[in-house]
């Protein structure tokens, strides 16, 4: 089955990103397809490569990047939500005249249409948030 996922909260404060990750890992294990993970609201904070958790804690951002690489999953940060919260890739950073970018590998920044398109294309849409 094809799953679309929306993650609406950032990492660490709320459990949503962990639940979403564990759900996705289990779905892949069972042979399902993850059509897209769309990060919205504070969920875009899942996509900053500057995250540096303590050694003995899970690295939520790195975990997403590795999942994307291993399973070729489409991880999309909403552009409007990302701009508000200071998450940018090199192009976005340049376009907005910023002096740095911080998007983690495996993510891409795109519009809200990606959420709608996932909702239409996926067999199941599952929302994780606060």
């Amino acid at each position, binding site marked *: 089955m094809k799953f679309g996922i929306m993650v609406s909260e950032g990492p660490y404060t709320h459990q949503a990103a962990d639940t979403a990750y564990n759900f996705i890992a289990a779905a892949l294990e069972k042979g399902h397809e993850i059509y897209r993970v769309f990060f919205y609201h504070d969920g875009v904070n899942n996509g900053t490569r500057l995250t540096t958790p303590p050694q003995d804690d899970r690295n939520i951002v790195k975990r997403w990047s590795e999942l994307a690489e291993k399973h070729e999953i489409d991880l999309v940060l909403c552009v409007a939500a990302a701009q508000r919260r200071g998450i940018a890739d090199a192009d976005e950073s340049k376009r907005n005249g910023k002096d740095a970018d911080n998007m983690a590998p495996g993510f891409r920044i795109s519009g*809200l249409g990606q959420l709608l398109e996932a909702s239409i294309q996926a067999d199941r849409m599952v929302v994780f948030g606060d």
Partner: protein
Amino acid sequence: MEETAGEIKKIMYVNRKAPYGTIYALEALEVVLIGAAFEQDVMMIFMDDGVFQLKKEQDTKALGVKNFSPTYRALEMYDVEKIYVEKESMEVRGLTVDDLIIPVEVKSNEEVTKMMGEADVLLNF
């Protein structure tokens, strides 16, 4: 918008949160406006504290935040016509349709259950 032609889904936007205290209401509205381009069968339901999103007389001047409530009036131009408010949610909050910024259709909790059952996708905000 690749490969979406021909497939029409019933998408229900479930709005349960009040405006300003958190950003969910505003960013949900942004989804609905962008989503209009996809020409799906969309409906919005306002329930629980979500009914406060539609309250008339919002004045955010002193807050220093944009008052986005007039944007709900634009939904019609985006062909978002199915806008529902749950009756019980309004009642327990002391509101009536006269308090709302746009005309809505009032649905009972029972009808909301039925509508949710008939939707293809529920997007929760």
